[in-house]
């Protein structure tokens, strides 16, 4: 490893360490709430209502919604970790520590994104453990499961970063999760198969990227999916490429950071 690469690696691991330390320090705000919320989902939708719904695609309703609920927790937390951490750094001006330093923009972006992915994975693990109390989870395709979790977390962490760059107040980092992310997640096939919808709404649902993530992840765990898994990977990779390019462009321009 040459000297410059080594310096960049140290800078990258410093950002990741700081991000992980941050969400572990405030675990009551970052790790506990998803565990409680997801437990409620399992109790209400899985146990109470689910027992009356019966089977879906050959699985008990609880088994069917578990992958979607886990994926929902992962993407929400990957997004909000980066959005809130980067915006706080802007708000308290300590982002200047990074801007003054020789850390290149792509390392700053990678550090924050990996921090977001780390929180997404931690929460995903917690929610998976919670779900094991209510239902059994078996993994049909481990490679697809793991790669879909990581790619989905990366994609939403990038989204959170762009949101934080543009945000000028704390309100503006909650607008996207409330008005965009939540509807996309709920309409992304977490609680139902799109085959239950009329054809028109099935086609509309195909425009929702969360549908692809939830279904590809469900395929990894249960072996069933509403959409072709290859299409899910292609679409997510496309989104990641576009969001990375856009985030780097904004960083280079100094949007939301430099005058």
């Amino acid at each position, binding site marked *: 490893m040459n000297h*410059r690469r*080594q*310096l*960049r690696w*140290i*800078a990258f*691991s*410093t*950002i990741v*360490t*700081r991000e992980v*330390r*941050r969400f572990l*320090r405030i675990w009551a705000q970052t790790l506990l709430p998803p565990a409680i919320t997801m437990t409620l989902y399992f109790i209400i939708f899985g146990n109470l209502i689910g027992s009356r719904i019966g089977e879906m695609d050959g699985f008990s309703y609880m088994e069917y919604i578990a992958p979607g609920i886990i994926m929902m927790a992962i993407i929400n937390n990957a997004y909000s970790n980066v959005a809130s951490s980067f915006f*706080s*750094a802007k708000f*308290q*001006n*300590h982002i*200047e*520590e*990074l*801007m*003054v*330093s*020789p*850390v*290149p923009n792509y390392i700053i972006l990678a550090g924050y994104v990996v921090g977001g992915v780390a929180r997404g994975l931690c929460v995903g693990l917690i929610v998976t453990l919670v779900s094991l109390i209510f239902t059994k989870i078996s993994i049909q395709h481990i490679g697809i499961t793991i790669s879909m979790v990581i790619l989905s977390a990366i994609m939403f962490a990038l989204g959170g970063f762009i949101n934080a760059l543009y945000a000028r107040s704390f309100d503006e980092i909650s607008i996207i999760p409330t008005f965009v992310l939540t509807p996309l997640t709920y309409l992304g096939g977490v609680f139902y198969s799109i085959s239950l919808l009329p054809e028109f709404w099935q086609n509309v649902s195909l425009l929702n990227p969360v549908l692809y993530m939830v279904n590809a992840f469900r395929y990894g765990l249960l072996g069933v999916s509403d959409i072709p898994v290859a299409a899910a990977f292609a679409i997510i990779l496309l989104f990641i490429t576009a969001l990375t390019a856009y985030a780097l462009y904004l960083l280079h321009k*100094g949007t939301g950071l*430099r*005058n």
Partner: protein
Amino acid sequence: MKALTIEHLNKTYRNGFEALKDINLTVEEGDFFALLGPNGAGKSTTISILTSLVTKSSGSVKIFDADLDSQTELAKSYIGLVPQEFNFNGFEQVKHILVTQAGYYGVPAKQAEPRADALLKQLGLWEKRHTASRSLSGGMKRRLMIARALVHNPRLLILDEPTAGVDIELRRSMWVFLREINQSGTTIILTTHYLEEAENLCRNIAIIDKGRIVENTDMKSLLNRLDKETFVLDLLEPLNDSSLLNGIAFHQVDAHTIEVELQRQEGLNDLFSELTKRGIKVGSMKNKVNRLEELFLTLVERPETVE
């Protein structure tokens, strides 16, 4: 070697305000350099451009010959910045702030930790190393910003009003510390509103006003240009008859205090001989204002600026 070379630097903000107008400036390696100017003159904009917090409109900046545009990482790695406003994560522990900052400069934690410990001890923050930075007093926060700027051993330390709002005792101890840092080889650029501070610490000086450099010289030459000084004399006995001082340019403040204006060519000895002859006993004497302050006011009030 030049620690800093600024050529034809311009900055116009989006609202059309021209903050910097064709700034040219050099700072030699090892110097203790003062960048002075009234509020809104362009000091902070200059520093923000040097430290990549503001994008310049045109011109070039080199830090130890590394161009800020084409050798960005190298140029930035030479700089340590103590900003005007507190800008650390209030929830992070003091030592974590230092080790993290060193990491951004590629210093591994194993090396950064002993450096951070040494700086915390030197700056009297050792007891607070595990405290969240928001719980520190104002003076401690100032010292923490200095420690943070030094943790990666920068060759150029830029201090933007580092002693603003700091009590006199702490200010003096910071002066001692900064002198030591400078003597160990670190080039320092200082902006301050305390002109006494600049006069005490700095060897060279630039004065910026309305976005232009109006003076750039060494401190000694600048102070030599002062053609008159006003001294405040405390008298041992009250002065009830001001006609005793006929022929001397003075202003009586109260019975025990007079201010005397002396031209540069006039010696203090002549004044004291004259006062002794007239039976006036002086208990103590001081400059009415700091010498640099007197010059500064003259320079920044000029209607026409000098390049």
